[in-house]
């Protein structure tokens, strides 16, 4: 219980930090702070109303407390291009980003574990070399480049997958679900290709280390089958550091999602960010960052707690 409390406090601290950094960056940069919550072409009357609404006419400290209060009520400002609350704009988009990132994460892990095992058990063999070279190369890829490449080859030349959007609007019921998955393949695959290299390389290193431990020698000496030694004994212990790293990479995954959604016109938060950049819609940009930061913090918290339950050693460290 104490462990969960500590992790929760840490998550809240991170979130507070994100929100505070945003607050001060927006206000310390040159320009009218009202621009962060509304249209530059607003009437003076609206400007005064917003100044009062957001308390921007008051001292910085009081403003800051107000800002936190507004956030707690889920108020992220008004999108000045769409004249609706930022929260409404982003909440419509959030499910798509969650579907995209979660499916990319699951696929990366599902492919990463067997590839990592393959590389570690045949360390310095040709399969290992190939996996290592591909892994290093994959880490050097630029997300949009990968997205464009897959779009050409699998989308345009082979015509296997649609190259834009998230679902066929006329499809209903089960057909809609299928169409959704069909549209998900290319953006998801782009993210998987980016993430997989680092994941497999970490997996390989930690598994090779685990295979050198005493309990592995003991298991072998007892006559446990080689496959079972790897999968049941060594892998379990190698998974923990790997998952910690996957958690640390969540920020990168989110950044990748922003770029991928832009390529494929996938209607998630990332695409909303791209559109907001073009329209200089600062409230949406600010809200999107706060929301994505909250999502990353929540995901990290869930994995931390899950691992704490699965592996008692984590709880004491």
């Amino acid at each position, binding site marked *: 219980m104490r462990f969960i409390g500590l992790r929760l406090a840490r998550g809240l*601290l*991170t979130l507070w*930090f*994100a929100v505070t*950094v*945003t607050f001060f*960056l*927006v206000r310390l*940069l*040159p*320009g009218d702070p009202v621009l*962060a919550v509304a249209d530059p072409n607003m009437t003076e009357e609206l400007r005064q109303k917003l100044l009062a609404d957001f308390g921007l006419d008051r001292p910085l400290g009081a403003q800051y407390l107000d800002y936190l209060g507004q956030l707690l009520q889920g108020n992220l400002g008004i999108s000045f291009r769409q004249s609706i609350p930022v929260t409404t704009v982003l909440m419509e988009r959030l499910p798509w980003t969650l579907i995209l990132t979660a499916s990319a994460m699951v696929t990366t892990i599902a492919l990463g574990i067997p590839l990592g095992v393959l590389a570690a058990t045949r360390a310095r063999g040709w399969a290992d070399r190939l996996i290592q070279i591909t892994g*290093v*190369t994959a*880490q*050097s*890829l*630029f*997300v*949009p*480049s990968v997205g*464009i*490449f897959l*779009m*050409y080859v699998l989308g*345009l030349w082979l015509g296997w997958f649609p*190259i834009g959007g998230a679902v066929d609007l006329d499809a209903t019921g089960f057909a809609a679900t299928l169409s959704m998955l069909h549209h998900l393949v290319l953006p998801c695959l782009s993210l998987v290709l980016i993430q997989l290299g680092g994941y497999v390389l970490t997996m390989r290193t930690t598994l090779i280390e685990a295979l050198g431990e005493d309990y592995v020698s003991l298991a072998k000496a007892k006559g446990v089958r080689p496959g079972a030694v790897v999968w049941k004994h060594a892998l379990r212990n190698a998974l923990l550091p790997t998952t910690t790293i996957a958690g*640390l990479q*969540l*920020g990168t995954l*989110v*950044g990748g999602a*922003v*770029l991928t959604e*832009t*390529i494929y016109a996938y209607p998630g938060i990332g695409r909303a*960010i*791209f559109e907001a*950049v*073009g329209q*200089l819609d*600062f409230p949406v*940009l*600010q809200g*999107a*960052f706060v929301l*994505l*930061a909250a999502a*990353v*913090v929540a995901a*990290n918290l869930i994995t931390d707690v899950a691992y704490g339950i699965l592996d008692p050693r984590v709880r004491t460290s």
Partner: protein
Amino acid sequence: MTALAMELTPRQRTWSSFRRNPLGVASGILLILLALVAIFAPLIAPFPEGYGADTSQLPSAAHWFGTDDIGQDVFAQVVWGTRVSMAVGVSASVLAIVIGLLIGVSAAYFRRLDTPLGVLVDLSLSLPVLPLMILVAALAGPSVRTLAVVIALFSWPEVARVVRSQALSIVPMPFVSAAKVVGGSPLWIVRKHLLPGVIPVVGVSVVLTTSRAVLAEAGLSFLGLGDPSSWSWGTILHKAQQSGALASAWWTTLFPSLAILLLVLSTTLLSVAYNDARDHRNDS
């Protein structure tokens, strides 16, 4: 052979074992070539601007990388893009390294600062950086300098973490205590003993931070936050996306993508080779 090896300083041994790694040497040469392209861009191709007669042409002898939808030469765009991409990458990286070094070394040496600085680094590392960079770059207005500063502002925690852990292993060394005993000022000890000790790790960091900065610049420019008056590899991709060339003219996106890949891959391989060369355990 052993007699000869004994006489070599560690630096010479690193260099000689680095030279024997073909991938590392090839990456180094490639990076130098890219830097030369960046420096001598005006001699290689005219600055791409205005409208050309040949629009959306496939690569040919006249236009090596083809032309875009308004008839500009993609080869010229990539050449000039090398300039901005590398300039932003290098300057952001230098700035991030300086901040990271200062914070990392202070955290390791001044024990009282360690906890707050450590928490700051941890918190910064656990946030999604790209959306934050987008917000700040959009607020500050697009320019090459903004990009470099914004990227540096959010890249130093990585450096600080690496520097701190290396510096922490030096602080308890006897020569540091000796320097304290003889009355060396903290600043002097940091400069004379800690900084030289962490420089080798920073060497790898410089390379990796630069490649990450190049990727960040490409990402921001791709989203439309690049300097509108200059070309970078990300800007070329952004223009292709805006004009719809993304799905029709493969050459407008392939060549800038290859340029990014070559730069980032060679920096990664270079740092791997450098790390291997510095690790003398495998020498025989």
